[in-house]
């Protein structure tokens, strides 16, 4: 049972016969009496009986809307598939719909988070943006997918790690945001990659030791020499192609790239915190979202991070989260401190 009881479940409990569940009903009513912003949303309740106990489990459902830009660069485009509607037969529309659903389920299952802002099921995406448009991006409100050029990129909606990466930007923004340039921008990119990789692993049921740790493994055409866009396990090795060049990501601070392009290399230097996350996840083992992911997620939503956070500040914040959640000398806290030292963000891994 999840620790956080969603308001719609509280409402059902509060209305239940008090003589049958006196404590639960009273607690639910008391909790509901506390003022809160309440937004109605989709959810499903599962009721079952275990011996003498009534087992209630509840999970929110997404409220998806996929729109079709019809190859124009205009948003949001025409509605193509709303929540609950049958598959359309348009591959991009249906892949986006499924990917949004898988990401929503991941956020709830891993972090008890409802959607991007923590309380709403609304998820919007636009596909077929532009002509042969070579990008997928987050516009502040929705995910936007081009079709790819067919020569380098075969399409973006086929990759759950890409979809979850874009939605990750929405979660980051909702949590207070990280300025999109320099180190804070690279942290923004890295955390979005972590969401991407974890949603993919969650969907496949993979533990840290067997996961590929690749982001965008499905989007290159056969003409490209490369396995993916980025590798959290081995930044700088995702591709090495005669047209695209070599994956420029560093995995250690000594190789930090100074550049005027890419908002100061936000997609390049993200390799450093990406590697740190991979080190924590593989040191702890098991499902990466359960401990490493949880530490990263709680740090993001803690309110302790400045929007201009540096790698070192983020490292300190994740170490604080690990220590407060699991104990100063816990395996988790040690793994976090060791990882940031290994990538050169902090000087050594000595216990503080």
């Amino acid at each position, binding site marked *: 049972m999840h620790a956080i009881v969603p308001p719609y479940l509280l409402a059902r409990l509060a209305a239940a016969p008090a003589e049958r569940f006196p404590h639960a009903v009273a607690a639910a009513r008391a909790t509901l009496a506390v003022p809160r912003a309440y937004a109605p949303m989709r959810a499903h309740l599962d009721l079952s009986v275990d011996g003498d106990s009534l087992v209630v489990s509840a999970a929110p459902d997404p409220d998806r809307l996929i729109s079709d830009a019809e190859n124009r660069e205009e948003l949001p485009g025409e509605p193509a598939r709303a929540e609950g509607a049958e598959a359309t037969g348009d591959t991009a529309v249906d892949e986006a719909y499924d990917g949004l659903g898988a990401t929503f389920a991941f956020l709830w299952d891993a972090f008890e988070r409802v959607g991007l802002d923590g309380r709403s099921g609304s998820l919007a995406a636009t596909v077929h943006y532009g002509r042969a448009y070579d990008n997928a991006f987050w516009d502040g409100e929705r995910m936007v997918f081009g079709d790819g050029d067919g020569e380098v*990129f075969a399409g973006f909606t086929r990759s759950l790690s890409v979809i979850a990466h*874009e939605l990750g*930007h929405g979660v980051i923004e909702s949590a207070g945001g990280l300025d999109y340039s320099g180190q804070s921008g690279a942290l923004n990119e890295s955390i979005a990659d972590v969401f991407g990789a974890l949603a993919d692993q969650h969907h496949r049921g993979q533990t840290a030791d067997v996961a590929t740790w690749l982001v965008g493994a499905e989007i290159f055409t056969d003409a490209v020499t490369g396995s993916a866009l980025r590798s959290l396990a081995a930044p700088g090795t995702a591709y090495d192609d005669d047209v695209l060049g070599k994956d420029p990501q560093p995995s250690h601070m000594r190789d930090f790239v100074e*550049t005027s*392009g890419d908002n100061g290399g936000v997609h390049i230097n993200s390799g450093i915190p990406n590697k740190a996350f991979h080190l924590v996840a593989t040191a702890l083992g098991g499902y990466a979202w359960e401990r490493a992911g949880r530490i990263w997620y709680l740090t993001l939503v803690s309110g302790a991070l400045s929007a201009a956070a540096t790698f070192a500040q983020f490292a300190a914040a994740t170490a604080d989260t690990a220590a407060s959640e699991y104990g100063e000398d816990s395996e988790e806290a040690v793994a976090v401190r060791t990882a940031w030292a290994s990538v050169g963000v902090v000087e050594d891994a000595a216990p503080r």
Partner: protein
Amino acid sequence: MPHPVDPLTIVVVRSGGFAGLRRAWRIEVAGEEADAWLSLVDACPWGEDPASAPGADRFSWEVEAVRGEDDRRAVVGEAVGPWSELIQRVQTDGAAVRPADLSGNADA
């Protein structure tokens, strides 16, 4: 002052985007053709700070137009209006080049 016979060279470098890939396009024109391209170049707000768009994973552009001693450069956050027109024309009419070759470092 640029001499009328000087060729006009325009280079567009695209970075960022979800993939973070660096791609470049280049065109060199001379004579009357260069004059026609100059009107596209002159329409762009070269001296202004780049407009930044909300969100993440958008493309980022570096544009350079050189004719003789006249060398104009800009970093463009979101390619809209005249920037979009110029960039699309260079991509369409120019040739894709390896970004590494632009800096003269072919091995990079």
